[in-house]
């Protein structure tokens, strides 16, 4: 029981940190892509969109090679640590958050930028209010980013090593138990993962839909 608690806590910690770091990268980068008008923009967007569909095992392989003792960042001795999993999961989630942020802002009326500037907004204020207007799809981007990392197994296995008490997370534990033929344990862990994912997405959906509910409640009663 203690081990399951430890595995669950580590899974949540690693995936939450990776999602937040990908948000810190993806939100400004996606905004820059959506609002910018520069040469090469479409090329970058197509690369980001490809990144959204990159198989986690490929990312795991690249990160593992980089963090391997003989690799470019081998001296940092991060391979088979939770930090290595966070790095790999951030690389998985960042394109998802970036791409969906860009799409969310591009869906707004382009004249809204001019209107905000025409009312005296600074560039920072303009971006803040554009994010506010796009908050529902931006929360969806956050949910998609989190969903992409909490459920992945390939990268976590390759760069974390599935070491008991150190880098074992729910998905890698499920793979291990299945390979041992311990289907009941694997099923129990799968159910736990599903419930956790559901609860987190339920909370985010509740936040997302709060604004819509407020709209409905303030509707005129005729």
């Amino acid at each position, binding site marked *: 029981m203690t081990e399951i608690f430890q595995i669950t806590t580590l899974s949540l910690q690693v995936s939450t940190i990776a999602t937040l770091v990908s948000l810190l990268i993806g939100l400004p980068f996606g905004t820059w892509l959506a609002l910018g008008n520069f040469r090469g923009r479409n090329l970058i967007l197509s690369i980001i969109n490809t990144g959204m569909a990159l198989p986690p095992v490929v990312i795991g392989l690249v990160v593992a090679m980089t963090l391997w003792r003989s690799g470019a960042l081998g001296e940092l001795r991060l391979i088979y640590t939770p930090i290595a999993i966070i790095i790999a999961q951030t690389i998985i989630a960042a394109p998802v958050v970036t791409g969906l942020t860009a799409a969310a802002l591009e869906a707004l009326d382009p004249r809204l930028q*001019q209107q905000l500037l025409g009312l005296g907004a*600074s560039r920072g204020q303009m971006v803040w209010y554009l994010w506010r207007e796009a908050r529902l799809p931006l929360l969806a981007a956050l949910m998609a980013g989190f969903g992409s990392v909490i459920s992945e197994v390939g990268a976590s296995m390759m760069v974390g090593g599935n070491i008991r008490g150190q880098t074992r997370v729910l998905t890698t534990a499920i793979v291990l138990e299945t390979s041992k033929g311990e289907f009941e344990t694997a099923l129990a862990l799968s159910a736990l993962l599903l419930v956790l994912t559901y609860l987190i997405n339920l909370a985010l959906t509740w936040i997302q839909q709060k604004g819509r509910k407020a709209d409905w409640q303030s509707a005129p009663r005729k």
Partner: protein
Amino acid sequence: MIRIRDLLIQRNGRDVLNIDSLDIQRGETLAVVGPNGAGKSTLLLALAQLLKPVRGEIRFDGKPLHELNELEYRRKISFVFQSPLLLDMTVEQNVALGLRFRGVPKERVKTDVEKWIKSLGVESLSKRRASQLSGGEAQRVSLARAFVLNPELLLLDEPFAALDSPTRVKLLEDLSVLLNRDHLTTIFVTHNLKEAAQMGDRMAVIAGGELRQVGTARQIKSKPADETVKAFLSELPQ
């Protein structure tokens, strides 16, 4: 107050507005008319520093725009678009938006917002969200949001074009009263000649990306600068 000389604006590498000379006096309402795609809105965007000229200059109170601090300058003006472009918040929050950008103290924001939503006749809607307003109500809120800033220059880009006729007539009357009362320097873009004659102290006719003529409606009607202006003004009320 505004002095434009030898101005050329390009969009996507194409010339879209060419003005040799145009002066706008403080307190004046200049109605800019012309067919769709003539370059009227481009003039407003250039005046708001949202488009940079490739040639020539615009002076505001004697100083070239490119020498002014962009943010400080934009906070002297106010822009109303054809579409109200309200944010997903309540009416009073929308009206307060520009004041909040400027860091105006809360107490003054409250007083000013109350004053202007009343002046535009939307006080009963102050707690309503923007998404629940009709087109006419939303445009009234958009006007209140611009007037509350007490701008030195008010830019109106066909603000009533998307409204039905009765709403449009009522809003024009209300706007006319406010402009006469406050003597705001206003540039009012429209392709409706009747509106232009009603609202403007002077009219500027733009066609094909060029400023063709400036003068009072009567002057332009009696002595059109060229055949294009003559044809365009033929629908002016006598």
